[in-house]
């Protein structure tokens, strides 16, 4: 089985002897101990495993480790700035008290972060479109929309943060 060098949250990680088709999700969780990215369905239907690959939101449960190559991976653990300053979305999620069980929220935030990086002032419809692939079983969608709007305002005032 091959070895891989992965760039995750700005750090290089050497992962030994992993089957090529192993979903990135399980490499992150079991091999690297980055458990913020969640398992929900394994078929890219629920979005709990959402992380970024070169800034694009993708479902790690259906992304084979062999397809990563040199692309940069960012998970929820890497979203805050170095030194720990939270991303406007993370702050908005706390302030708006979005979570109930919280299991889906890392995936929701990662989808929203990819949206704001591309479109800092999304309409409600654009928010819905960007988060359409993320289930919230507890039904916090009203607050998710509100938190993305709050974060977008902060984001714009700061002229983008990335």
């Amino acid at each position: 089985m091959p070895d891989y060098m992965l760039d995750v949250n700005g750090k290089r990680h050497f992962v030994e002897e992993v089957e090529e088709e192993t979903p990135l999700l399980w490499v992150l969780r079991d091999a690297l101990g980055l458990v913020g990215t969640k398992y929900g369905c394994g078929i890219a239907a629920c979005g709990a495993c959402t992380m970024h690959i070169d800034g694009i939101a993708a479902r790690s449960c259906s992304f084979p480790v062999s397809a990563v190559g040199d692309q940069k991976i960012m998970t929820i653990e890497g979203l805050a700035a170095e030194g720990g300053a939270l991303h406007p979305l993370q702050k908005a999620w706390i302030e708006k008290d979005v979570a109930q069980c919280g299991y889906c929220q890392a995936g929701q935030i990662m989808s929203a972060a990819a949206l704001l990086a591309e479109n800092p002032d999304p309409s409600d419809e654009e928010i819905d479109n960007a988060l359409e692939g993320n289930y919230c079983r507890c039904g916090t969608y009203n607050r998710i929309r509100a938190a993305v709007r709050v974060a977008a305002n902060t984001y714009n005032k700061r002229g983008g943060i990335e």
Partner: protein
Amino acid sequence: MKEIASTPKASVFEEILDEIDPIIAHGISENSSAMISPDINRRSFLKLWGAGGLGLLLVFNLSEASKAARSNTLSELNAYIRISIDGKVAIYSKNPEVGQGIKTSLPMIIAEELDADWRDVVVEQSPIDESIFGRQNAGGSRSVATNYDALRYAGAAARYMLRAAAAKIWNVPLGECSTELGHVIHAKTGRRIPYGQLGDKAATIPVPEKNKIRLKKRKNFKLLGKRITGVDNYALVTGQPLFGIDQTLPDMLYAVYEKCPAIGGCVKNANYDEVLKLPDVKHVFPLEGNGHPLELSNGVAIVATSTWAAFRAKEKLKVEWDESDASKDDWFELIEQARLLKAQPAQHTLYQTGAVEEAVSDTAKSIQAFYTHHFIAHATLEPQNCTAWYRNDRVEVWAPTQSPGRAVNNIAHTVGLDASKVVVNQTRAGGGFGRRLVNDSVCEAAAISKYINAPVKLQWSREDDMMHDFYRVGGFHAVKGSVDPDGRVTRWGDHLITFSEDGEKSVIAGVPRRPKEEFPASFIENFQLTQSLIPLKTRCGLWRAPNSNTHAWVVQSFLHELSTTAGVDHLEFLLEMIGTAERRGAQNANSLNAERAVDVIQMAALKAGWGRTLPKGRGLGLAFHFSHGGYFAEVAEVSVSETKDVKVHHVTVVGDVGPIINLSGAENQCQGSVIDGLSAMFEQEITMKQGRVEQKNFDTYSLLRISQAPSVDVHFIQSDNPPTGAGEPALTPLAPAVCNAIYSASGHRVRTLPLVKEGFNVI
């Protein structure tokens, strides 16, 4: 026809139902209207000590007082407060956090009466030990109701002792010492001492008798009723390990467990050797079930060095099942049986008053209808899992369970140890909804760890989770009713066709637990609820607002059929029905108080603009339900296109659950209940064929997505009634409110759920 006074014990599940029963939750007997307040006195404090340098440590044990007032099966409570010298107030939250917000709201109650500064409060999840902490579970929307009084007294007693300590230090009368935000204050001299500096002294103060403790008046609350954000929010948005699935142990292995897709099937043989040869696979072995359906069922375990290796190996596993005793259930055959049964006399009467058959007057109009609702799964977003470590004849587990207290006994029973050798650590759970009241995955993990003598994390796949659930039972109602021209319902008959494991008793949550208390039984002069049973092997369980979540749909939909038949506005019709009944106070926690019901209905109508003119194809629907001690009225605004696309634009929720503990949390629960209710009525359906559940993942069993979610506004009528839970009752009126709105918008009466069965598409 056989008369049965009440539903007999249905199954082992009944034990769980008792644990989460709202009546028990209130500690209220059937004949008493009084709340039983847990009595705090000197004797009831188990331990009290001041540890030098560690500040004040209080362990409250209220179990003796509780036992005096209640039977041994009723809830007990302990609260645990630690004030350290740096002023931090550590408060244990004793119950599992599954998304209902209890880890924030229970400590708020203590902090309020303690007059702590919430910014100083650190919440810790308590150990699982019911001998110290009393009942530890999450179910029945009962955590606030059962703990409210006792936690208030706990906080107030600690505050008294801190004041007394300061009074001694200052040598002033106790009455001159007040408190504010973590300080004791002597107003006359302007002196203040932070709680952290009073710990040692306070620990020498005798614990006050209950009659010395004065609780705050609600108008003086500083914390309760406010919007307080969840104590785990930071950890959640930064991806820290909180959940069961996130647990790891040194040298931990990863397991999966394959059970027969048809319930009750047993392992005959499997390709053990072939699977054992696969990469990273360490063990493959069968386990015998322990005969307890809520614990360990027969199956094959695979243990590997990673989750993915175990998942891959499971795909290659081929088991030959002995299905001679397994389920052969077929949903479409069950529907046919129900259609035959509805034409026959019912098998049992659950409740009857008046004479349903003779009660039709000359002027009344009579209608009948047949309602069908579906089986659904819990589909918690975190699939079932558990981490277990069996060593030296002891076992420790880390479990995302709703019933950690009972898990101790389940595990002990499964692995053959005394309960004293079992340690359960509670993790946050990625959703509960009733699924995690059953500890099957916990028992499997313990049994696998025992077999391999190593630490292991058992992970169910989504497919395992969906195919091996304890489902919300489907069912059928043949309903008939009569209404006079004034909109007065003169008779109501409901022949409920449900299922039975043993042919004698309904499956869990198949029928109302207290038919007489179920709306509208006591509001109609001639009323009858009967049941017939169809044999079933598919496992049923408790799903958010058990039974109420379907019963409310039938009742509130058929009431709308009656008001429409009479040509009476539905708001007027409901108010007439409830308001003209004797306006009695609630006899117990499960007995509807007409005044509170009328208040929520009127406010919902007001907030939603009931009666306003809407464009063609758009309508409002109103429904009310009372469950778990909570009163909820909801108005849905819905449009229906000519191609039967349904858009739920907005839902107005008005609830009365007594005083609100955490406004943010309570509002979130109600919004979530609406989304969950809509999700459950739209497309989700579990069907069985040859005993096998046909839906395996979210490609065939979908949850509501964000674009389909209506905006939801929530309003509370905060009364001085004892507080009750907000996690379940707001779900119940949603389905009928939406169906009544669909009727108003399109003239189509929905009598089968999910909506896709009647050709609707929710957009």
